[in-house]
């Protein structure tokens, strides 16, 4: 699905990713853990095409093509989706119309006719019920004044609508209450499919108890320093990251 080779990237002259490699096959769930500031969100944003980051070397292949050649909106329409750690507020833009615009952009890309507001409304109602998303949120401006948990659910709603191929969840669990965490995790599990891959960025075991990853990576200092199976999560929970970052990280690369 996505293959990252020796990726180096920087922002405002500061280098963040330093030779990161990662291979995710269709249908796989990969968890990415690692200390604060290690570059997890950066990795997600670079895959999604944020224009502030500059890739200085390395390559990313997605679905057989060169991902880095595409603009952010093109990548999105081709199936890259990122649920943001901090979803941005867009005052003045109605959430429901935003969702419809996004949905129709994807449909247009697939050569399908656009759906009208009425048709879309029905679709939205169904999806938002599954997520127990308060209906009021659809009539408000995008993320504007949403609580932390509401923003995260709104992200998941978009994921379900857009049916992407590669899903990057950036700390979607943080800010969710216990019930919401379960609801979101269940939605993700239902959403898993053999031709869809997930990169789940998280700090906590509890999400990964629900969404069981096939592979777990530790990202530190801009590269993958350890790769294991879901048992690694428990070990990290107990031991923290020092043993990985303090130890000669360059030799434990994954």
């Amino acid at each position: 699905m996505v293959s990252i080779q020796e990726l180096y990237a920087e922002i405002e002259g500061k280098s963040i990713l330093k030779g990161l490699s990662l291979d995710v096959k269709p249908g796989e769930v990969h968890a990415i853990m690692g200390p604060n500031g290690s570059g997890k969100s950066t990795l997600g944003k670079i895959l999604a095409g944020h224009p502030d980051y500059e890739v200085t070397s390395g390559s990313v292949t997605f679905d057989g093509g060169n991902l880095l050649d595409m603009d952010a909106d093109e990548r999105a329409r081709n199936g890259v989706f990122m649920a943001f750690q901090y979803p941005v507020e867009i005052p003045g833009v109605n959430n429901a119309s935003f969702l419809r615009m996004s949905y129709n952009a994807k449909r247009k890309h697939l050569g399908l006719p656009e759906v009208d507001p009425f048709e879309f409304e029905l679709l939205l109602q169904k999806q938002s019920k599954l997520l127990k998303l308060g209906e009021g949120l659809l009539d408000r401006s995008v993320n504007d004044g949403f609580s932390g948990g509401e923003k995260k659910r709104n992200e998941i709603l978009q994921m379900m609508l857009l049916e992407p191929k590669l899903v990057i969840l950036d700390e979607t669990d943080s800010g969710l209450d216990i019930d919401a965490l379960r609801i979101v995790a269940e939605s993700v599990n239902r959403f898993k499919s053999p031709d869809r891959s997930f990169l789940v960025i998280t700090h906590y075991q509890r999400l990964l108890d629900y969404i069981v990853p096939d592979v777990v990576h530790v990202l530190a200092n801009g590269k993958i320093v350890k790769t294991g199976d879901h048992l690694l999560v428990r070990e990290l929970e107990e031991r923290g990251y020092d043993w990985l970052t303090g130890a000669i990280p360059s030799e434990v690369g994954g």
Partner: protein
Amino acid sequence: MSKDIHAIASKPYEYGFVTQIESDTMPKGLTEDVVRLISGKKNEPEWMLEYRLKAYRHWLTLTEPHWAKAEYPKINYQDIHYYSAPKITEKKASMDEVDPELKRTFEKLGIPLFEQKKLAGVAVDAIFDSVSVATTFKGKLLEAGVVFCPLSEAIEKYPDLVKKYLGSVVPHTDNFYAALNAAVFTEGSFVFVPKDTVCPMELSTYFRINTQDTGQFERTLIICEENSSVSYLEGCTAPMFDTNQLHAAVVELIALDYANIKYSTVQNWYAGDPETGKGGIYNFVTKRGKCQGKGSKISWTQIETGSAITWKYPSCVLIGDDSVGEFYSVALTNHFQKADTGTKMIHIGKNTRSTIVSKGISAGKSENTYRGLVQINRSAKGAENFTQCDSMLIGKQAIANTLPYIDVRNASSSLGHEASTVKVSQDQLFYFAQRGISMENALQTMINGFCADVFKELPTEFAVEATQLLSLKLENSVG
């Protein structure tokens, strides 16, 4: 490499072409003889020439004002053509006789000079440099008693009305550019709606500057008698030249008892070169409406997008008791543009009300200033004003200023003021992009949300156009 938003190609100004047509252009420069010559070209009566000469002599005593938030080199008034007209200036009885080259020009600009076609509900007066080349639906309007014609024609056919009202709202002594305009104005539209008449269609004047180094000094006069109403729209474009062009118009509106005038502007003059800031229109305009009658209403709506420098304050003088003034404005600046715009609401009559809604959008290295005055005189018992000024900043180098002046001279009036500033961030646009939405659509959506209060005031025929125009102007502006 992912493409930076900076790099997305900016759409060039669509209307920057020059029409190749033989024209009768007066040599550059301004003297008393030039004023006489203009008057002569228009076959004006003696009183009109006198009016011009008085204004010209007054203008000579004035100095160019420079208080607005825009710096520009002193204009050389001897380096401007004050008159330029396409060679075939005889007004044609039928539209089919309009010069085909001119017809094509206006068609390219989206302004049909054929009746009953695209904009069937809109009568158009098309002004090319210094003359009106066509006015549509004149006959149909006259049936309703509405006069819609070039001002030069009104001077000839309705001298009493022109004598009575010309300069009654904006006298030639008002300011430097008003004096200049009164001396050398060449064309403009005249609208007269008689008592108890609702104008049966939208009226629209379309201004086009074509000849290089030509000043456009149009003059518009709209009179609505008792219980009548009209909705009027002006649009403007110009070719791309690397020298600046002066546009110094005067617009006067008069509303008698219970009359209602709605005046909308979609201004898309050439703004200058996006990279260097060279060229573009200096848009120094005096627009004022007089709510003379009881319960009368004047409403200004403007979408200002072009011009290198805009300097404009469409105002309302609320004389009649219970009269209403409104000002709805979207001013967009990008690259090196400067806009200093706003309104004046002068409350004189009792229970007069005014509303000001200003939306300033600044992008690139531009500067956008709202400057407004709300003056409530002692006589204006029970007057009310509500002002809302919102600014939207796009990118890191744009500047927005809000300068509301309030002058209240009685205690029974009430005023409300709200202001806000929003910044369009790279992260917001990235959010749109991450959901598959193109930059163009993202900006259009954000602008729509921001300007909704103003767009809803535009005649429906033009609301969609205005939105598209704004987002076009903003491409390539975030970073």
